């Protein structure tokens, strides 16, 4: 087969995916970008008219009094969630490498948090975290012997950590499963060889596991960041962005602007700010990737 014909075949590998992307994402991305520069209201849905307002929406959104806090909430929410999910997920993945009875079943059952509809899990957590009648406070009271009445979702200082906790709970299965598969791909022989050299336990982890896992780690962290930045339903279900905006992130604000205030242009602007932040991470990922490939 000639080199040219082979290049065409290579194309065939990606053409279906590329076409799918163009049709399913091309238009929405463009439309969302354009919308952020327009005055897009309910009227626009019917008439199609959306006057061009340039950077107005962005200026409005960025200069609004709560914006700094929203950015801070988003940053804390994302960073803490990712770190916690990844570390716990990796620890669990490593743990499950030990073959013991029921390990397969337990691993699958741990995917349940992801499986349950978000409206159900957010309702369950809301009840569990209720200040007065919630199970969590009851358990803590029992364990410490005193009356624990933490306002998990009602105290402005505790609401964000509580929401992060639930988000980490949701994200652990994702990290654990992918990292576990990644671990399974590492050949046993490498560990055996290392053991012969006397490297076991933590040293084996740093010398073999961590480097071999790097591509998978990279994608898990990147996707984790992208998905967490977009996380909307769980926050809405737990606190609706409250109390007093203490759990309001860029994603919830975009939703509120679009479907609470019907200011779709502003909602799109916030959505695009979110995308830009994700893009920064994507670029970092690609750079790190290229370095790895070149190595």
């Amino acid at each position, binding site marked *: 087969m000639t080199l040219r014909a082979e290049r065409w075949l290579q194309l065939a590998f990606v053409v279906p995916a590329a076409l799918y992307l163009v049709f399913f994402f091309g238009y929405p991305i463009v439309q969302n970008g354009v919308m952020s520069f327009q005055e897009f209201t309910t009227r626009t849905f019917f008439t199609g008219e959306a006057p061009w307002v340039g950077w107005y929406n962005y200026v409005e959104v960025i200069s609004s009094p709560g914006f700094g806090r929203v950015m801070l909430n988003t940053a804390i929410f994302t960073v803490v969630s990712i770190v916690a999910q990844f570390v716990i997920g990796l620890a669990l993945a490593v743990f499950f490498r030990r073959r013991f009875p029921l*390990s397969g079943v337990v691993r699958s059952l741990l995917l349940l948090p992801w499986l349950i509809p978000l409206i159900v899990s957010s309702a369950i957590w809301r009840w569990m975290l209720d200040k007065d009648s919630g199970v969590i406070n009851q358990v803590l009271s029992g364990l410490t012997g005193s009356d624990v009445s933490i306002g998990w979702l009602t105290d402005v200082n505790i609401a964000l950590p509580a929401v992060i906790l639930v988000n980490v709970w949701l994200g652990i299965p994702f990290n654990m499963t992918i990292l576990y*598969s990644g671990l399974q791909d590492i050949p046993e022989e490498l560990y055996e060889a290392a053991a012969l050299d006397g490297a076991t336990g933590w040293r084996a982890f740093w010398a073999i596991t961590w480097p071999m896992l790097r591509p998978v780690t990279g994608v898990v962290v990147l996707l984790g960041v992208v998905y967490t930045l977009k996380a909307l339903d769980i926050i809405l279900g737990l606190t609706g962005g409250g109390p007093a905006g203490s759990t309001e992130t860029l994603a919830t604000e975009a939703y509120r602007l679009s479907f609470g205030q019907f200011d779709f242009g502003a909602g799109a602007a916030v959505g695009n700010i979110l995308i830009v932040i994700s893009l920064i991470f994507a670029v970092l990922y*690609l750079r790190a990737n290229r370095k790895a490939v070149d190595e």
Partner: protein
Amino acid sequence: MSSAGLIGASRGWRRPVDAAVGILILAVLLFPVYWMVNVSLQPGGRAVGTPWFPLNPDIGGYVQALEEQGANLITSIIVSLGSVVFSLAVAAPAAYALAKFRSRWLTGLLFAILVSQMVPGIVVANALYSMYNQLGLLNSVVGLIIADSSAGIPFGILVMRAFMMNIPQSIVEAARVDGAGIIRTFWSIVLPVSRNALITAAMFTFLFTWGDFLFALTLTTTADVRPVTLGLYSYLGSYVNDWSAVMATAVLASIPAIAMLVAAQKFIAAGATGGAVK
């Protein structure tokens, strides 16, 4: 047996201890799931002041869920499995290309895939509604399968690519030297070696589609094709919630999904790549 510390099969006496620890982890992490089952069995679906155990289990919610959501469950299963097949078919070759072929504009494609993951779902759903309306794909199983793959395909490409980057170039070269064409190499060498990657991508595509509410809501206008995520909402009015039916439906819906995931997990075997090198 190597004493490789963190990995490998546990020694004899450690196995039941490990199993116990595993179950403890399960109990802690899945406590909310237990609570869900608990509420589903409470008479009247009491959400506040729920006792720790359902001492008087009331299966009314389950009866209602089975009667009314049975068909929806089947729809969900068909759409989810269909989405897995479609997504893998599109994503696997693309993942391989992005992992192994070198080309400047392939990096551009990778970038585009990453960007697609960043777009809020509602934006995609709105655009799809118009498109589907023109093409007559609303209220169709095929339409939902293709739309729900919008989560599985980019994700599958990204994850499988990461796994495939670890495939040693040597085995690919060996196949080429033996005269295998590019497609044959992919089919006979790369895919079997990427079994873990395929299964992982398949599982998450299944999960994404199974839990999808947005596309199900947007792309259906009648009750003909109604995945169970939508069916759940027949019990949630704006003021009044029938929690026992909701929880029962959620529990019932989890069962086939978990069954499939358990089956899939069994196939994630160790050292798939290593064996090929030998």
